[in-house]
């Protein structure tokens, strides 16, 4: 059945960075409207950070997002340390990298298993799968638990970590605990292999739209914590030049700002990272990419979830290697000594949904004068819009239900945030 006249209203998609709506209007086969709208209640972090002391800034910005709270803290600490000229120890760098890989693992498990996979099993959520596919659900839950236990161990708490401070950590994990989690990570390798096998069987919609990809890049590793700001179109930029890339702008249909650079939109996240850094993947992750038929450059946004599965394999291996280094070198208590000073600093990290920027200016008392945070989901909004405009004409010959499902899956693939990528896209057909 094809649709001559069609009106789609995807109602309120509540989430951290956006209540999202999809609106589509089709009259006599002509697309009159095709729009991705974000109508989330704004929370004004950049305003209320002003005047707050540097010691609590990473704890405040952590609260932007429960699921990426580790990433926000890392970007925040890097920005504050850059502003105040603070250098961190190698030990702190290793532990922070480990935390980011833990977050990447738990977030990607959540998205791929809990939010994406139910579509392919033809159910509305992971809950009915507890009865029908218990092994799959238990695998997902145990992988997620492992990742969260790792983050608890290093950060003191996986949601809004406690131990991460400007200059280092309030306290350190015990070696015996590190050894134990190392063993569990190693035991999880077959579970990652089974995850790859599962996603290799899923039928990914064939849709291609070339775009610009933005991510950190590094010569030495597949980076999350540090690297050079890189565009697939325009090469590398210094951290301080990030505004040249992001170019935020306001649009009337959205309470989240949009971004653009060389083209009308760009993409961040697992697929952008894969396209820019695939050569740096661990051999096991490269093997996973081959099994999943993911090849760089890939211009199919539905493959973002597949790139996340590849990153599961990579983050597991990088976490193991970081723990080995830590076990070998040991951990020493380090005094946190910070002398606040006036200045501006930019902190950039990769979080599960893409590249994240924090930019603070401090006064000489160490209180925030101004703050700017650019969140991955905001950077993807314009790209989602442009994808929808290109994708919709290719699926008009399908039934209204199929059109709706395809549009839902497109938005969900971006993993815009835990909630927004779920199956709450309540699409209603008026005509």
């Amino acid at each position, binding site marked *: 059945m094809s649709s001559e006249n069609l009106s789609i209203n995807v109602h309120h998609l509540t989430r951290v960075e956006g209540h999202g709506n999809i609106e589509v209007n089709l009259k006599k086969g002509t697309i009159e409207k095709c729009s991705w709208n974000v109508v989330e*209640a704004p929370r004004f972090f950049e305003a209320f950070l002003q005047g707050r002391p540097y010691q*609590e800034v990473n*704890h405040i910005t952590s609260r932007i997002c429960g699921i990426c709270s580790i990433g926000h803290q890392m970007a925040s600490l890097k920005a504050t340390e850059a502003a105040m000229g603070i250098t961190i120890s190698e030990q702190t760098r290793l532990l922070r990298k480990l935390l980011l890989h833990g977050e990447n693992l738990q977030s990607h498990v959540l998205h791929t298993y*809990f939010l994406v996979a139910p579509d392919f099993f033809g159910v509305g*959520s992971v809950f009915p799968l507890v009865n029908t596919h218990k092994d799959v659900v238990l695998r997902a839950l145990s992988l997620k638990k492992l990742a969260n236990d790792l983050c608890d161990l290093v950060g003191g708490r996986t*949601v809004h970590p*406690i131990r991460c*401070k400007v200059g280092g950590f309030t306290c350190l994990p015990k070696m015996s605990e590190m050894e134990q989690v190392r063993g569990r990570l190693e035991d999880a390798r077959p579970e990652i292999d089974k995850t790859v096998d599962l996603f290799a069987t899923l039928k990914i919609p064939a849709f291609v739209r070339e775009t610009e990809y933005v991510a950190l890049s590094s010569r030495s590793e597949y980076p999350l914590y540090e690297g050079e700001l890189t565009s697939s179109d325009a090469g590398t930029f210094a951290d301080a030049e990030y505004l040249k890339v992001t170019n935020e702008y306001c649009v009337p249909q959205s309470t989240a700002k949009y971004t653009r650079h060389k083209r009308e939109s760009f993409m961040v996240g697992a697929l952008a990272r894969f396209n820019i850094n695939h050569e740096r993947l661990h051999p096991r992750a490269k093997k996973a990419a081959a099994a999943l038929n993911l090849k760089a450059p890939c211009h199919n946004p539905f493959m973002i979830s597949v790139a996340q599965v590849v990153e599961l394999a990579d983050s597991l291996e990088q976490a193991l290697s970081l723990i080995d280094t830590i076990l070998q070198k040991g951990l020493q208590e380090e005094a946190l000594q910070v002398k606040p000073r006036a200045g501006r600093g930019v902190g950039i990290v990769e979080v599960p949904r893409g590249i994240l920027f924090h930019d603070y200016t401090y006064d000489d008392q160490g209180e925030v004068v101004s703050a700017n945070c650019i969140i991955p989901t905001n950077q993807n909004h314009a790209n989602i819009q442009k994808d929808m405009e290109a994708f919709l004409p290719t699926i008009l010959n399908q039934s209204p239900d199929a059109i709706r499902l395809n549009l839902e899956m497109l938005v969900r693939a971006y993993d815009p945030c835990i909630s927004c990528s779920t*199956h709450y*896209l309540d699409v209603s057909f008026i005509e």
Partner: protein
Amino acid sequence: MKPKIALFDFASCEGCQLQVVNLEMEIPTLLGLVDIVAFREAMTEASDDYAIAFVEGSITRESDIPRLKKIREHAQVLVALGACACTAGVNALKNKMGMDRVQTIVYGDKASLYETFPARPIHAVVPVDYQIPGCPIHKDEFVRVVQALLLGKKPEIPDYPVCVECKLQDNLCVYELGQKCLGPITRAGCGAWCPSNLDACEGCRGYISDPNKNGQADIMAKYGLSAEMIKKEFRLFNAYTEDSNEQ
């Protein structure tokens, strides 16, 4: 028949609902005891037929109010989930700045496109039956509250300060480390989460019902600190309470 429960959110980071998902291996057990009929973080289906509603987040704009009132009408029991819902949490840090100013700082000349008012906790808009405080909530406390509700009992949330839990765990007082801690007046129940990780309590669970601020001042005086020096910390998670007390 299993009781039907639903989870909702307003302005928040959704970290408290994530804590529910983080129950992990306990989820299959939970699903054996209750039917989850609305939980946007995890499911397509959404029903208005539920007995217990857990609501995360603060109320920050007019359009939130009818949605919350509808949830209140449907639910026999409404539980506020986490700091944003219980005390308005960090969302209330903007409250005294003037809404025009905060809108302009974030959105510049497009400020008028973005509706907002000073953040309120859930109980400032509709009656709330129980509160699970914290930023984020503690998983064990969530489980205890669900157990009590299923047994038809009143869930008990501690009304003594975090200091008690620090003492029970034999923690080093973080004042000894030169930190400024809100433990003496903050509601316990988190197991002294932050001080146990050698970081000061930031008051995310709100104050106990009869906070002894003079006692807090005495402790600070002992360490050569003045109450004035901790004013900003008071506001971090409790700006709404502080502003309400002033009025």
